[in-house]
């Protein structure tokens, strides 16, 4: 524990100061240090997309990002996508509306990724959605409904 370093992070618009070892990933910092457990740990090796968050507005994998690397950058997690008590984000609503999940484990990552997919302009067709959502795996195989949800949310967001 001698190698801890103090870092300042901005998560969902809130400033946090925490002491972590340099090897601690953003994913572990969120879940274990900040109790933001909406971001899920799937493979922990950059293959499944369950840990997708936004850094400076772009989707990245928090399992392959060191917490210390994102000092000075704005991090958004699923908890910060809509304000508590406020209306859900259109992508969250679309996932509910279209039943775009079964077990729900991959869903926070799917939703964070889908928000970016739409924002980037990569939701123009079902094929394009499938290509640009390919970094998010769903072991339940809810893909057809996920594609529907992204397609419909893209209409609402445009």
């Amino acid at each position: 524990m001698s190698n801890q370093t103090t870092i300042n992070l901005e998560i969902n618009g809130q400033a946090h100061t925490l002491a972590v070892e340099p090897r601690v990933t953003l994913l572990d910092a969120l879940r274990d240090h900040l109790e933001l457990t909406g971001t899920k740990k799937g493979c922990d090796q950059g293959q499944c997309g369950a840990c997708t968050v936004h850094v400076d507005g772009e989707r990245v994998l928090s399992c392959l990002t060191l917490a210390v690397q994102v000092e000075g950058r704005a991090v958004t997690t699923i908890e910060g996508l809509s304000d508590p008590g406020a209306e859900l984000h259109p992508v969250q609503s679309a996932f509910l509306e279209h039943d775009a999940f079964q077990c729900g484990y991959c869903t926070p990552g799917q939703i964070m990724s889908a928000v970016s997919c739409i924002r980037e302009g990569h939701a123009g067709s079902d094929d394009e959605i499938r290509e640009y959502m390919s970094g998010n795996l769903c072991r339940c195989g809810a893909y057809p409904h996920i594609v529907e949800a992204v397609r419909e949310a893209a209409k609402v967001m445009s």
Partner: protein
Amino acid sequence: MRDFSYLRAGSVDEALSAAAMPATMLLAGGTTLLDLAKCGVNAPERVVDITHLKGLDTIRVDAEGAFIGALAKMSRVAADPAILAGFPAVSEALWQAASAQIRNMATIGGNLLQRTRCAYFRDPASFPACNKRVPGSGCSAMEGVNRGHAVLGTSDACIATYPGDLAAALVAFDAVVHLGERKVPIDDFFLLPGTTPHKEHAMQPGEMITAITIPASAAARHSTYLKVRDRQSYEFAAASAAVGIEFETDHETIRDIRIGLGGVATKPWRARAVEDALRGRVLEPDTIKSASRLAVEGAIAHGGNHYKIELAPRVVERAILKSGALA
């Protein structure tokens, strides 16, 4: 993952002097470094974060060619309008690689330095023998599951495939890797495994990639990247080809053709024999078919990867036809 000390470099010079220290690794996008640290392949004592360095992510295209800073992200380069116009194969190779998240993280310099996906290399706990990880320890892939392994550029010590897509396009168009002032043609930057598969590139300790440049050419302007793989997205190539063609003024005789191969070789592979067979010839299907066979001259299979000797020429053939239609 073993713990390490962390240094955030304030300048390239600071990064370089830190990188010269033993057991030190530079951290850019992190998608390879942290992945392999979790696998137990990397165990750096010091990690030098270069992601906060300014001015290393420039993308500039002019009449001479493209200049791409080492820290430019894959997603930005893939979407850059001038790269799309002047080097479509480069853009296509990038957006067909990895996933959207990884492309937002991974840098161009780091992309070149990605390591093989050989399952034996990536799993030191189960497979202690790996000549790439521990020189002289042996190779489990030769007699093992080697469906993804290389058929070109292999040696008795190693058959691990170089997995990158971008470098296959870069090697076709004579890109140059900038290590600060030192400039290395990309074909010389990557090394064949030979008896030293642990040495993968020409970079020395204390050097870092600062940029790559790609000379402008008509062939690069009329280029495409064709990637064939086990699933349609988020998968490494079983075989891929970057092809660019320039015609004579008759629009059918090939003046210049460039072919880079991915997924089948131990380093980004330039298919010069195919190029030589087609330069000066009229682009027509039978000529292309027979010339494409030359892509796998000297190929050696190890069982599971035998299909690549059949697949690679077909991919080359299709990519030439596609590129020819663009030129």
